[in-house]
């Protein structure tokens, strides 16, 4: 009997659909530009909701649209029920990316929306020829410290970010940056007593891919 019960639970989890909080409508706004700040028109952008990538996880397309003649995009969609472990990612489909490096901003939660709106003023789309890949590893030297709000100031196109451990101390941030520039890596460290420390450091981008460990 217990086996059947567990089987029913198992099947229901695998086949579960993503529930919406239909009374909450979220807004995402951004502008897509090339490396010279020219507006990019007609670029497809998608918002996906998922609760991980493992067995039994769910994922679906929540919203999609194209940038207008000014490169601007506004997507409005019902909120998933975030308290069930869902988060969002913004990406541009690969069919649109023949000339561009992939674009993905992931791990977006309800806390990233201010008054139900998330605005990213500008997202760069870079080509492979003009950019290099940058891989940052944020490694906690004191396990009680947590890293938040990583922000790259410079011409870059975000690709992926994630914590690699359950304690959320080891964080990776992967992006493409335009060659031959100096970018600013900004992040916030939260210590065990909740105090926040803003940190900023420069990184020189040349012609080669970069992999760098940042201890915090």
């Amino acid at each position, binding site marked *: 009997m217990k086996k059947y019960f567990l089987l029913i639970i198992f099947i229901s989890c695998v086949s579960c*659909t*993503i*529930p*919406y*909080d*239909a*009374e*909450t*409508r*979220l*807004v995402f706004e951004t502008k897509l530009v090339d490396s010279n700040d020219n507006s990019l028109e007609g670029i497809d952008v998608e918002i996906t909701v998922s609760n991980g990538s493992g067995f039994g996880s769910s994922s*679906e*397309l*929540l*919203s*999609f*649209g*194209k940038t207008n003649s000014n490169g601007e995009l*506004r*997507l*409005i*969609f*019902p909120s998933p029920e975030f308290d069930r472990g869902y988060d969002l990612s913004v990406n541009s489909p690969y069919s649109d990316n023949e000339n561009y490096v992939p674009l993905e901003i992931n791990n977006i939660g309800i806390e990233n929306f201010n*008054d*139900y*709106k998330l605005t990213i003023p500008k997202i760069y789309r870079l080509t492979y020829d003009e950019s290099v890949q940058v891989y940052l590893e944020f490694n906690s030297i004191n396990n009680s410290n947590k890293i938040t709000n990583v922000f790259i100031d410079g011409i870059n196109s975000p690709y992926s970010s994630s914590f690699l451990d359950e304690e959320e101390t080891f964080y990776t941030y992967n992006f493409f940056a335009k060659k031959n520039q100096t970018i600013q890596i900004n992040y916030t460290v939260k210590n065990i007593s909740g105090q926040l420390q803003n940190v900023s450091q420069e990184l020189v981008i040349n012609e080669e891919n970069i992999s760098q460990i940042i201890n915090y």
Partner: protein
Amino acid sequence: MGNKFLILLFLFIFPFCFSQEKKDNELNLKTSFSIGFIYPIEFGSTALAKGHSSNLGVTSSLGILKYSNFSGGIGLDYIFYSVEDKQLIGNYGSSKHNSYFFYFNYDYPISKKISLTPSIGYGYSELVIKKSGKRRGAQDGKEFRLGTSINYNFDKHNALCFSILYVNNKYDVKTEETLEDFFGKSNSIQIGIIYITK
């Protein structure tokens, strides 16, 4: 919760109504039943008007009380809307509007066969998100309706009715301030053809 209550009320009152003695000059329980098709013409700057297209819906009502030419009862509407602008609304197929309401009519005879029936109603409504045929979530709301119908009475017990109603809904919503009315309200002129038996 509200719709379950009204369905139970339907089931409880329906058989009871038929057992009552009918007298026109005093308040009494007098039943009538209607069923028909409705089509909403949405207007205004709302999600249903700007991001959806209307489809044919169904309506049904049960008359319960009658006093002279006045009558009252309960009713329900189900209407499907197809999502047309997914950038504005979200990536799902349709919204379904359900409403469960109380109404009052005044029956004004124009001739032996034709009567005019102004109507007012109020009740619970919900706007349901449907994706791949499954219910994914709903906004609760309140519905106000005001309109009239022209009835052609075939005989004492059967009539065909053409109705036109103004229907206003206010839904619960949490969103950016500039979108509160867009997702929190709907306005429509609802036209219908309805069969009535009494």
